[in-house]
């Protein structure tokens, strides 16, 4: 075990990034076009990174699994994006956003990264406005804000319930402009299946053309992974169907450490599970908690309709337990309270789990039209999914896997443990600690892509001797062969169970043992079950069709194979961390139902190194030091 160095610049927190930017080497404009950078993934982080590097003059090759970059899962983010603009004059500042994010992350994030994020947030809004992102505005023409969980100021910018879509279109359009100018070469419907490392440096990727099955090699001077999170390890999550850990996992197997895999976010407000054939869960934006009140009946197993339950018999549990933050308690905390109520028998639905999210008071106060203006599309979506009208009856909601704070380990420059491999957005572990605050994922994705990676990549390129390389190099041939062998292996099993059935089974193991609450017994059991399931998968999975043509089942099989390895690491990490923090809640470590951290022993980032097939990953630690914000018990009461 070694100690990892986050390469945090020295000096006061307020000037670290500014000083670092000055100290970084530059690549002169004429030389930039001689350097190629690969960007994998075209969501907020990837598209913004590709666009910005294209603008600077680098030769960029961008890849995505989708038909079009505009379909990346960032598109589904609903509520908003934070920025410390203090336009509302309500006491916000860079330092407050920094403080809220560190506290929200339960003191498990790197101070320097979070400060840079808060500092950069204001520029993101400016950039997006300039691109034509139609943020909500007041009648005077100024930008509007709403509130989000874990903050007592109003700093969230939004475009109705479609903020992610609008920000993504902004980044996508900027990237398409660079495609038009010839600075970015875009390859869609390509899935990265391996990272090519030459002389210890990331020099390219192997992708499968999803339409033809062709395996392609692409070389570059540096590689950026912006491939999102791994919540679909749970099978049912709010993530899109194609979301996967595959690209990050292949990089992990080539030497990139995987950090804090057990830090997963279970979002409190999702439409509850309805049945066996359900393929995914749908989020109801956190912004709804601005105007909705969360409650359950005080009576156990109450089968009355919510409208028939009188006020005095309702338990507005978030307002009761957290009087100062109320319904805007952060996600991990709010989710746990919903779970407690259902575990105690107060669920709003028989044979399932749900609590009410009620808008009656606000509708009475502001009228239906006002609510429709703010949340129209969300109410409509709820109605379509459930067949119930949330203007008339409270929504029923329950927590669901939504975001993963863990990811590939990166230093302050967002570079992984493989030189030349950078990781941006949800795919890295860097900024949210053990719990992410609402409206901070969009902020981080765009900060990384527009304002961090373009600088740090330049510094890497300027400081590194990069030999020219051809895709015919032996390392590319070897990686191609590895990919082809794995595909053939999957095709040749010809077993009796569908890919889906394995994914569902893994998801159940993960949700029951490594979900909202974890304990030693459950995690130990999962660590026995997962390798068995993996073995059965490789002996009994059925992948129909051919490898050399469009084959969605083969794509899924490859992704599930990786989840079957990741799931085990998540459980190991969760077992190893004998404390509760943020989204990682170990039942053995709590005080009155709240997470009990152990700063003496666990104030570190756990980064796991791949040691080879059938061997356990080994643990490396990066100690976290808090020089600006005092370690304290997180309280929202």
């Amino acid at each position, binding site marked *: 075990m070694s100690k990892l160095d986050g390469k945090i610049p020295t000096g006061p927190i307020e000037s670290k990034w500014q000083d670092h930017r000055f100290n970084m080497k530059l690549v002169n404009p004429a030389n930039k076009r001689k350097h190629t950078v690969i960007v994998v993934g075209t969501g907020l982080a990837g598209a913004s990174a590709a666009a910005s590097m294209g603008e600077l003059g680098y030769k960029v090759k961008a890849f995505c699994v989708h038909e079009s970059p505009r*379909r990346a899962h960032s598109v589904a983010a609903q509520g908003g994006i934070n920025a410390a603009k203090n336009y509302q004059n309500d006491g916000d500042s860079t330092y407050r956003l920094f403080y809220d994010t560190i506290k929200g992350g339960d003191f498990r994030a790197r101070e320097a990264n979070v400060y840079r994020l808060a500092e950069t947030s204001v520029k993101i809004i400016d*950039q997006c406005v300039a691109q034509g992102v139609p943020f909500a505005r007041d*009648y005077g023409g100024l930008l509007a804000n709403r509130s989000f969980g874990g903050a007592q100021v109003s700093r969230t910018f939004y475009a109705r319930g479609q903020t992610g879509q609008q920000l993504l279109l902004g980044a996508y359009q900027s990237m398409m402009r660079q495609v038009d100018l010839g600075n970015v070469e875009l390859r869609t419907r390509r899935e990265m299946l391996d990272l090519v490392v030459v002389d210890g440096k990331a020099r390219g990727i192997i992708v499968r053309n999803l339409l033809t099955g062709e395996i392609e090699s692409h070389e570059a001077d540096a590689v950026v992974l912006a491939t999102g999170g791994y919540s679909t390890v749970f099978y049912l999550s709010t993530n899109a169907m194609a979301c996967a850990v595959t690209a990050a996992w292949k990089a992990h197997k080539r030497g990139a450490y995987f950090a804090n895999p057990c830090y997963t976010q279970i979002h409190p407000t999702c439409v509850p599970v309805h049945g066996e054939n359900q393929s995914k869960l749908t989020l109801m934006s956190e912004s709804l908690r601005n105007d909705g009140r969360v409650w359950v009946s005080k009576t156990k197993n109450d089968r009355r309709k919510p409208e028939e339950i009188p006020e005095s018999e309702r338990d507005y549990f978030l307002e009761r337990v957290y009087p100062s933050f109320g319904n805007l308690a952060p996600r991990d905390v709010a989710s746990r309270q919903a779970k407690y109520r259902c575990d105690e028998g107060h669920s709003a639905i028989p044979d399932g789990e749900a609590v009410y999210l009620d808008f009656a008071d606000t509708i009475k106060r502001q009228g239906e039209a006002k609510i429709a203006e703010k949340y129209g599309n969300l109410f409509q979506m709820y109605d379509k999914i459930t067949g119930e009208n949330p203007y008339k009856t409270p929504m029923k909601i329950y927590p669901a896997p939504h975001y993963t704070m863990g990811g590939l380990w990166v230093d302050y420059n967002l570079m992984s443990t493989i030189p030349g491999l950078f990781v941006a957005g949800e795919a890295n572990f860097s900024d949210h600690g053990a719990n992410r605050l609402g409206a901070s994922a969009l902020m981080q994705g765009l900060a990384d892509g527009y304002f961090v990676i373009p600088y740090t990549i330049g510094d890497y390129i300027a400081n590194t001797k990069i030999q020219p390389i051809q895709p015919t190099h032996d390392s590319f041939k070897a990686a191609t062969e590895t990919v082809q062998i794995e595909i053939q292996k999957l095709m040749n099993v010809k077993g009796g169970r569908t890919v889906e059935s394995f994914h569902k089974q893994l998801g159940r193991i993960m949700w029951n043992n490594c979900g909202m609450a974890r304990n030693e017994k459950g995690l130990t059991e999962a660590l026995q079950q997962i390798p068995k399931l993996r073995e059965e998968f490789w002996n009994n999975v059925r992948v129909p069709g051919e490898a050399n043509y469009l084959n969605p089942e083969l794509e899924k099989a490859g992704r599930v194979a990786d989840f079957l390895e990741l799931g085990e690491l998540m459980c190991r990490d969760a077992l190893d961390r004998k404390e509760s923090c943020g989204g990682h809640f170990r039942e053995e470590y709590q005080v009155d139902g709240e997470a009990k951290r152990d700063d003496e022993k666990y104030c570190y980032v756990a980064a796991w190194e791949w040691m080879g097939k059938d061997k356990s990953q080994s643990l490396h630690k990066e100690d976290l030091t808090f020089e600006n914000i005092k370690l304290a018990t997180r309280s929202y009461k």
Partner: protein
Amino acid sequence: MADKMINLTLKVWRQKSKNAEGSFSTYSVNKVSTDASFLEMIDQLNQELIQKGDDPIAFDHDCREGICGSCGFMINGSAHGPLKSTTVCQLHMRNFSDGEVLTVEPWRSSAFPLIKDLMVDRTAFDRIVKSGGYISVNAGNAPDGNAVLVPKPDADEAFANAACIGCGACVASCKNGSAALFTSAKLVHLSSLPQGKVEGDKRALNMVAQMDQEGFGACSTTGSCSAACPKDISLVSIAKLNRAFLKASLNKKPEVKGGEAG
């Protein structure tokens, strides 16, 4: 959330590749939960097909929340099926009755070449955006977000048009296979904002030229596109596109070559 089960008959267009011959295949799908979405119903059928050793039906899908624009096909001749303002992933089976026969086929347009079964290639839309569907601003150049006031009605109009998900239902529903609604939505989104006006003329000329080049048909303003649009993009946008194109054509100034300042 009353969980009811229904049985259905599906006639699905099966076609192995762009140049292969296609035909309808008939399937019975039994015990479909009325709480399931249309795509979950196809998932269920596909699981059965895989178990039987048959080829599962290929269709594009991803977010299943009606926002990524990946999914879409015709159900009984209607793009995205019978429900207004709804993509197929958000269309739930409670909207169908037991014993119904449903014909499912891909978008049909020469500008959207078929890939397999219900999957088509809509990358023509990306090329239209590439031709001018953006505001030229490099990262780092932007003034303060509140430096330019945007009247709320303009911001709202921009948003209503920016809501387009690029699913292609407008093209599939149009007898001419026109992409006018898609193109106009992007144009109106950008051109109704002050920061988007500078490039307005160039944008209109280039995007229309690209749309024609991709092989989309001409618009005859019958409005079936807007009726099928899951995001309710208004036909007014096409009128605005036409006006912008006409204005830009009249305003057209010769481009100055090599005029970049020292």
